[in-house]
């Protein structure tokens, strides 16, 4: 009887572990120059990423040639670039969870800049990041580094960190917790000699509730960040002679609102961040946006470097495992542990 139960449990375990394995598909990296001599890299790069990941990634990896074979059956062909609107349909056809594509641009001093987009099928989100390396001498290091970033991104923790948090710097937190819980959360940072700015701390209670705070799940500071692929849907404003002046005024007002808060939002937000930095006498080094889940035992973290105004750290599901009986202190300690790490940790570079 015990043998049967054990066998059944083993089968369920194997089956469930297979279910959780994701499919990572690689498209082309488009040559952004007019120099055709670089065209070979359009396929070499994705194939190299796929080969580097083959031994360590648990799920299935699809190379451009495999994707092309699948698409051929549908009378289609893998393209060198995709609009955001086309991505959901593509992933449905190739049956993948993640699709990686992008572009490269050789630069001066033999450097090459690689822009990567990772489309996440489950959430319909697009994560974008940029990496640069030496064309000849460091190309394999660059490929390995980016492959490690893919591995960290292609799971539910969506881990991306491109800069270390420097010791003894000034941190600011905006969270959905308050009162004594905030004190407990701050305590480990103080113990490690970080200064904490009074952002959010002059309030007795937080003004930020859980639902509204979800807005911070997606933040994008060009060229790095996470956004919805539907973001770039073009809106049509249909109006003509049948509209009276009041309606046209309303339409223009709507267009202006959308321009400010939707299409030109990165620029609008950059001004707001500069305004925030100035208000605190440019005293904040890193701004952390941290959302605690309902049970306050897991967090979603986003971090903006306030000097460059760029998002440098994305991570979901940092948990409260740790030595103390306070979830808040354990989570803070687990964040601090990540400070010296990078999501491309195999090759450490100086900040």
């Amino acid at each position, binding site marked *: 009887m015990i043998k049967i139960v054990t066998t059944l449990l083993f089968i369920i375990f194997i089956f469930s572990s297979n279910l959780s394995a994701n499919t990572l598909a690689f498209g082309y990296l488009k040559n952004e120059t007019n120099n055709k001599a670089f065209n070979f890299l359009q396929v070499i790069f994705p194939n190299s990423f796929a080969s580097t990941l083959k031994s360590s990634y648990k799920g299935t990896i699809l190379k451009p040639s495999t994707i092309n074979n699948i698409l051929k059956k549908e009378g289609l062909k893998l393209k060198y670039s995709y609009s955001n609107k086309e991505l959901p349909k593509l992933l449905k056809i190739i049956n993948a969870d993640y699709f990686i594509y992008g572009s490269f641009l050789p630069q001066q001093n033999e450097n090459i800049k690689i822009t990567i987009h990772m489309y996440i099928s489950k959430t319909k989100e697009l994560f974008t990041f940029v990496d640069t390396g030496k064309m000849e001498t460091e190309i394999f290091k660059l490929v390995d580094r980016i492959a490690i970033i893919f591995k960290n991104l292609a799971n539910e923790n969506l881990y991306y960190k491109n800069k270390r948090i420097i010791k003894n710097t000034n941190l600011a937190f905006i969270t959905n917790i308050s009162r004594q819980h905030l004190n407990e959360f*701050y305590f480990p940072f*103080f113990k490690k000699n970080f200064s904490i700015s009074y952002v959010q701390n002059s309030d007795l209670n937080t003004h930020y509730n859980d639902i*509204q705070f979800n807005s911070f799940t997606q933040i994008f500071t060009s060229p790095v960040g996470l956004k919805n692929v539907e973001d770039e*849907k073009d809106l049509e404003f249909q109006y003509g002679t049948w509209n009276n002046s009041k309606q046209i005024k309303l339409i223009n007002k*709507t267009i202006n609102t959308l321009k400010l*808060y939707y299409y030109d939002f990165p620029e609008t937000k950059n001004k707001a961040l500069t305004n925030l930095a100035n208000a605190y*006498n440019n005293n904040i080094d890193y701004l952390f946006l941290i959302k605690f889940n309902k049970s306050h035992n897991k967090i979603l973290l986003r971090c903006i470097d306030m000097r460059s105004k760029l998002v440098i750290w994305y991570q979901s599901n940092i948990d409260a495992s740790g030595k103390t009986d306070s979830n808040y202190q354990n989570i803070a300690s687990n964040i601090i542990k990540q400070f010296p790490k990078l999501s491309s940790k195999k090759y450490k570079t100086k900040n």
Partner: protein
Amino acid sequence: MRKYISIMLVISFLTIFSCAQKKGVKYLRTPIPSRSNVAIIIDCPNNIKNVVMTKFMQRGFRVKALNASDLYSLNNVFDIKDFKYIAYKSSSKGKRFGSDSDSLLSTQKSYDNIYKLHVYNFEANKAKILSEMRSTWDVRYLILLELQDWEETSWARAIDLDNYNLMYIENYPAKYSDNLEDVVDHFIKGATRRR
């Protein structure tokens, strides 16, 4: 049987003890000198507010009349929660400019973006107000307090308005024998000297 009863007694004792014994936290960067100018923010009835202010004045602090000139409680102040309604009212929701799904999505995204901007601007505005508090009211330290009953955690936080940083935090689980004055005294001692 005796062994079993003894074990059960020990477990019950430990359970009761661990429930009652909440751990406090305390960090003090630099002690607040007595005789400094402070503003105290506390959300409680005015008679309790008076006790708290008196305690600080007795210890030599110059307590500025901020949050002491209000008859209303902080709960009555306009809340950011109402902002969601305002955001939707000014959006294109319900109007047909393009397809419905596009309109709805861009409205939601615009709302999310406005909310993010509001958070950044709200925190920036607060900094400006606190900077005015330093320059106009000559407040050096802003002290926030919340006092709770026995078994609950009272907490305090102090901000140095000169360098925009937190310089004192403390959570204090009040003891059964503590009265209001004891708890306030505890926080004053905590903020003014290292232990």
